[in-house]
């Protein structure tokens, strides 16, 4: 127990566990664990055949964290900012990820986005009627 030196005894020995549980202990040796050590320097491991990736074309201005030196060479293009929520999102990116203002403005923009989308749907369905 915690108040004396020895560790509490387990109900089952390693041999009993090995017999009961398929695969028990096959990764006992840390060398068999793929993320040990956490960092393993090997630039060839991933299969990348570039030092720095070719840049994806930026068809419209892409918002980015001000903690980045430049726009990353590859980025997602889903749902560019639009409307009032889009203006809020772009404004939020003036603040770094370290600032609560960045995340709070984005959270409010998410709610405004949902409201704008609901209004747009209503206008569209009224027009089609």
């Amino acid at each position, binding site marked *: *127990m*915690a108040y004396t030196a020895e*560790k*509490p005894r*387990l109900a*089952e020995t*390693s041999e009993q*566990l090995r017999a009961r549980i*398929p*695969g*028990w*202990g*096959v*990764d*006992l040796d840390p060398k*068999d*664990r*793929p*993320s*040990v050590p956490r*960092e393993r*320097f*090997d630039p060839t*491991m*991933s*299969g*990348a055949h*570039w*030092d*720095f*990736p*070719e840049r*994806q*074309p930026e068809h419209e201005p*892409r*918002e*980015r*964290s001000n*903690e*980045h030196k430049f*726009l*990353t*060479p*590859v980025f*997602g293009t*889903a*749902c560019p900012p639009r409307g009032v*929520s889009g203006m809020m*999102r772009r404004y939020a990116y003036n603040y770094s*990820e370290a600032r*609560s203002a960045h*995340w709070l403005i*984005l*959270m409010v923009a*998410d*709610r405004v*986005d*949902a409201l704008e*989308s*609901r209004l747009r749907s209503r206008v569209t369905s009224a027009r089609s009627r």
Partner: protein
Amino acid sequence: MRAMVYRGPYKIRVEEKDLPPIEHPNDAIVRVTLAAICGSDLHLYHGMVPDTRVGTTFGHEFIGVVETVGSSVQNLKTGDRVMVPFNVFCGSCFFCARGLYSNCHNVNPNATAVGGIYGYSHTCGGYDGGQSEFVRVPFADVGPTIIPDWMDDEDAVLLTDALATGYFGAQLGDIVEGDVVVVFGAGPVGLFAAKSAWLMGAGRVIVIDHLEYRLDKAQTFAHAETYDFSAYDDIVVHMKKITDHLGADVAIDAVGAEAEGSFLQHLTGAKLKMQAGSPVALNWAIDSVRKGGTVSVMGAYGPMFSAVKFGDAVNKGLTLRMNQCPVKRQWPRLFEHIRNGYLKPSEIVTHRIPLEDIADGYRIFSGKLENCIKPLIVPNAA
């Protein structure tokens, strides 16, 4: 194409969207044959992740068939059956060169603190996900892998996140022979972490949750000893009692931002979004583990602050280890474990839902209805 589309918190539907184009010479377009809803997708669904835009398609667990490849792709061709890790990564930046694929610096312009993830908000790069008929897969020479002929689709789709993450979580515990390991959360990641802890030589594996059907699964699937925290006045005290007042050697948080068990934390974190999630499970992990022990955090949390009991972690001399899983790094070893019969991930699948009914899938999974543990999404079943 048909795709799941986010419309706002608790609102999703299936819509017609344009086919994704090739945007970079190393892109591939993949026709999705099987996808899954992840527990962390529920954080998006519940409106907890900042910069989740209306119109986004979720889904970071998927497999499929290569439809088109960009001009610089060398390792894949049209018709290849591929599994795609949830991380979008370049393979060549400072972090990727060291195997930290989940921390890639070249794929997420929106944030430097997190890499790229398919269908996981603009905070994770603004990529559409795989809960759709087609998806854009950047860095096709680096991320996807051809699925071995002997592997079935349901095992393959669970390797793209849930199994790899659970296995990674157990590794971060630095388990040595005979360790007592406690896993908080009996969802897919928790079940896989518990199962993996045995592979690393744990002497006792304990799983904590409050859903009886999931605890039953933890007993049968992961051979774990289980406890329902709602049956105890204080689960931490119970953990001390059952470990001779020492505490577990390793604790794994496999719950994350929407943990229950504390009214105040759940209200301020999961409901009012005043903190980046409800860190109840993480605090229980900190308090349940022994002094000098290790806490491995696999649960997902938002980017803002959380009320974590950091003082206890300091005073107990704990090692806190965490990261998004670099999935592809786990695959060769996990392939061996599946082939040898040590792991059969598809045993946790409870629901197979056509893409057209995905809103029902989210409702069932979010409400923990119908004994749901892992729902799969079948795009071509409609």
